[in-house]
């Protein structure tokens, strides 16, 4: 029973952390709660589908289907998170200032909702599929059988959701002034962490070289299977024995999103005064609004 609780805790914690960070990062966007729920439900459905067709997925791409599938899902999520963060680099300040969404934010917010939906459903799909297969395997093999497995699974899931909920509650206590800067950093690290995991699957599929395997070994200092190690793995992508290529992916995503956000924000800033000065004095009162955009 304890084994079931532990593994389900690890898997559900990873998904719960992603959902909590996304929920916090998209604070103030209309309809985000509904999209999170729909994302979770779609993710569960996807997990059942993936788990039941694991044999087919595994046999694809000359036996490397599982690796390529995981890497693909992870990289799609990285793209979504990158889009979110770059968008927030322009709109974050505006949203923090108003604490609600402006007309502009609502407009782009609908696109933002598809980001929430995709990221949440992918997280639930990946972790859920593995959990389903694990529980199935354990339930049919342990002497204690189905009831203990389900009991353990439920307590593991509960614990995972609890930690995710605590993180969300903690994030909401951050003053609004810093709120979107901090959730922005969390989303950035989440994206980098997923990119590193995608690199690991691509190395395993022999598509990419490992460069150095492992780059370091900190398993003696902080095991990735410990509660804190799992938390760090889920939030910032801690890996006790990463390959060099994983670090390359991690740092590349950090740089691309950070520089991309700065570039877009600078362009928005440069465009705003030009727009205002080109207009007559009669519409000068619109200038602050244009700047905020």
């Amino acid at each position, binding site marked *: 029973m304890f*084994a079931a609780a532990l*593994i389900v805790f690890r898997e559900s914690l990873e998904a719960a952390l992603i959902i909590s960070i996304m929920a916090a990062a998209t604070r103030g966007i209309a309809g985000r709660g509904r999209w999170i729920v729909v994302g979770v439900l779609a993710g569960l459905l996807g997990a059942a589908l993936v788990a039941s067709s*694991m*044999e087919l997925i*595994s*046999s694809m791409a000359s*036996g*490397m289907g*599982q*690796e390529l599938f995981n890497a693909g899902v992870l990289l799609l999520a990285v793209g979504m998170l990158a889009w979110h963060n770059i968008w927030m680099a322009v709109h974050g300040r505006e949203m923090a200032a108003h604490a609600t969404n402006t007309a502009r934010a609502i407009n782009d917010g609908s696109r933002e909702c598809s980001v929430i939906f995709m990221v949440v459903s992918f997280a639930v799909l990946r972790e859920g599929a*593995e959990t389903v*297969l*694990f529980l*199935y*395997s*354990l339930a*049919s*093999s342990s002497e204690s059988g189905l009831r203990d497995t389900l009991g353990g699974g439920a307590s593991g899931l509960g614990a995972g959701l609890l930690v995710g909920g605590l993180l969300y509650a903690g994030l909401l206590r951050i003053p609004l002034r810093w709120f979107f800067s901090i959730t922005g950093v969390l989303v950035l690290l989440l994206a980098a962490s997923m990119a590193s995991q995608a690199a*690991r699957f691509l*190395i*395993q*599929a*022999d598509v990419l070289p*490992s460069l150095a*395997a*492992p780059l370091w*070994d900190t*398993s003696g200092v902080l095991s*990735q299977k410990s509660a804190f190690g799992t938390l760090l793995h889920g939030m910032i992508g801690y890996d*006790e*024995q*990463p*390959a060099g290529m994983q670090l390359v992916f991690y740092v590349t995503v950090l740089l691309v999103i950070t520089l991309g956000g700065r570039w877009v924000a600078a362009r928005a800033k440069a465009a705003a005064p030009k727009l205002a000065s080109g207009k007559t004095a009669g519409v000068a009162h619109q200038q602050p609004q244009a700047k905020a955009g």
Partner: protein
Amino acid sequence: MKRLLSLALLSCAAASAFAGVAGVDEFTLTIQNHAFDVKELKLPANKKITLLVVNKDATPAEFESKPLNREKIIPGKSTAAIKIGPLKPGRYPFVEEYHENDAAAQGTIVVE
């Protein structure tokens, strides 16, 4: 001339790729009743290796090794190919993650 050169390069690359495939050694590990058939598997150092993990059980299993940085689900009654190496000499523990606390579901790859 340019085309000829690129053709030559391409065939060189293809030849080395084939040589690579032919040069990969295969080793087999079997899971039955959620237990590995061997506790220790000896593998040669500094070579690319394909590890075939045969799951004879009807239920899925997951081969996992942090030191090897590998993690792969093996559906029931199927075989998974896991590419590893080139490895330095040493000991690389692995587990069947779904039963990781059972001693029978743990093993070590010994590279020498």
